[in-house]
């Protein structure tokens, strides 16, 4: 048999892997959704979902609902719960994201942002376009279901047809209580989409999450993805824009975002670069206020 008959075999992987391309949903909605939400505060005006009302402009809400694959279960969800999901997607696409110099986290441990995350956030012209399109292409259905488990806010499940099911629970809307910002919910969606890359959790230590399979081995997983998102959010939005124009993020936002970084590194990620692991442990940053994060990140407020 001549060797040239073997050559078609070499083309097989090209055929296998060329069929899957991502669609650009970002460009369909950015025109209606390119605005920043009001800086986060504490509000006692709760909706039926147990959280402050979502900050959604009507045109953006319509544009996003046209592309987000909500199913019929949302008819049973509390008032405002669906808007909280839509609001989180708006935050993902509207806020600039920026990698820190030398890809540090909390201004320590150069090159500690995982290569996978760099690849995902840099696949298109901007990080926010990259991650928004990545998520939407991975999610075929967004469903509301309160029976997932008492402590779950969301869950990503691959379906038999290789589609992705994003399940949202009641806790998703109310996870931050009276906080009006949407970044922790945006991070939750980014976390769930990381599961769509085929990445699942590993076992926690006995004193974390009852030792179930809810932790990550290192920063490359879904919790690390949240950390990367938070860090890029702070880098792009945490500084004062000009002498007359303040940062788009309030101190309350910075505190929640900083807490998100520290809590994930402290509880959910079992291995991090040594300088970062040391900082998180010795500074007790899960209990620190906004001033500590502003100082640590060197933000110009």
């Amino acid at each position: 048999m001549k060797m040239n008959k073997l050559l078609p075999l070499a083309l097989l992987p090209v055929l296998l892997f060329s069929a899957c391309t991502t669609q650009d949903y970002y460009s369909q909605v950015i025109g209606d959704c390119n605005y920043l939400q009001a800086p986060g505060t504490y509000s006692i005006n709760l909706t039926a979902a147990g959280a402050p009302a979502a900050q959604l402009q009507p045109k953006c809400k319509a544009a996003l609902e046209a592309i987000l694959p909500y199913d019929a279960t949302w008819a049973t969800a509390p008032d405002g719960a669906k808007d909280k999901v839509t609001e989180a997607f708006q935050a993902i696409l509207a806020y600039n994201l920026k990698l820190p110099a030398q890809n540090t986290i909390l201004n320590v441990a150069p090159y500690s942002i995982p290569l996978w995350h760099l690849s995902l956030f840099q696949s298109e012209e901007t990080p926010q376009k990259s991650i928004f399109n990545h998520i939407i292409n991975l999610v075929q259905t967004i469903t509301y279901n309160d029976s997932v488990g008492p402590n779950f806010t969301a869950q990503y499940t691959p379906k038999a047809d290789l589609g992705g099911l994003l399940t949202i629970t009641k806790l998703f809307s109310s996870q931050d209580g009276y906080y009006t910002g949407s970044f922790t919910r945006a991070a939750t969606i980014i976390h769930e989409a990381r599961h769509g890359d085929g990445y699942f959790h590993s076992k926690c230590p006995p004193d974390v999450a009852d030792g179930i399979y809810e932790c990550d081995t290192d920063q490359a997983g879904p919790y690390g993805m949240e950390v990367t998102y938070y860090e890029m959010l702070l880098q792009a939005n945490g500084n004062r824009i000009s002498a007359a124009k303040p940062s788009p993020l309030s101190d309350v936002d910075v505190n929640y975002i900083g807490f998100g970084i520290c809590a994930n590194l402290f509880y959910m990620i079992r291995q991090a670069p040594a300088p970062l692991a040391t900082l998180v442990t010795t500074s007790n940053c899960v209990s620190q206020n906004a001033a500590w994060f502003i100082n640590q990140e060197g933000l110009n407020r």
Partner: protein
Amino acid sequence: MKHATTQRIMNTSMYAALAILCLITTGNLSKADPIPLKDQIFPTYHINGDVEGGFQVSYGYCPCLRWTVKVDLGGGDFETRDFLISTDALFRYAQTETPRMFNSASHSFRIGAIEALAKGAHVGLAFNGVTVGEDLDRGYSDILATGFEFLVSIVRTSNMSLMARTGYEYEQLRVNAGPEEKRNILSETIAFKWKTKTNRFNGAINATVFTDPFAGPLATDQIGYKGSASVHANIVNLKNFTFGTALQTSYEHDPFRAMFGLGPDIAVAGIYFDVGLQK
């Protein structure tokens, strides 16, 4: 700087090829009765190409599901009176993909891997070829690797072989897009291969310990180890065509990764299907 490294690798590759050639030549010249050159070099040979696709699950460094594809071309063996020269593929392309195939999780090219075993002396040399690629799951990019192994055949029959392999591997890569890292890895491997008489089933077991003695004082936590086992069945086994399936599992502990805050333990299990053509 990069040019110098590439040049060093090319020189290393050339020395390996020369060493294998010398081994073959020396072995053949040492025989008393001359054998026609044609018979010395190509008395028996097989050439094959293989495409393998599969699905794997990993745990440890990346608890992940991945599609895989591997293309091997130019594999085969050339058996002379004194030497068995073999390669599983002179050219190998390997790729893993996320479940929805939107993103490549790893891809690599390997060129030129070959080994020669002196049948009488039971020793040989292997050149690992030159590998370039990227592995997002491991956090590695700009990977460039090559190396040699000294082989000692402990047991060799028509159906099985047990071999000790002492190796040196040079590897350069970037971890999480950071500065270039260089590794000089020394390894010791015990490799066992078996097949049934008709080659309906075959398999392999490997166990390796390795270290980078140039990374610092030799310590227990710098010694890595890895092991793998596989069973392969040729479901269709015609003269020039095979269709088979394989189960493979591997485990690796690499302390190098822990220095960067990456999970050092890597476990992978997979099921693979392959189509092969051979002459």
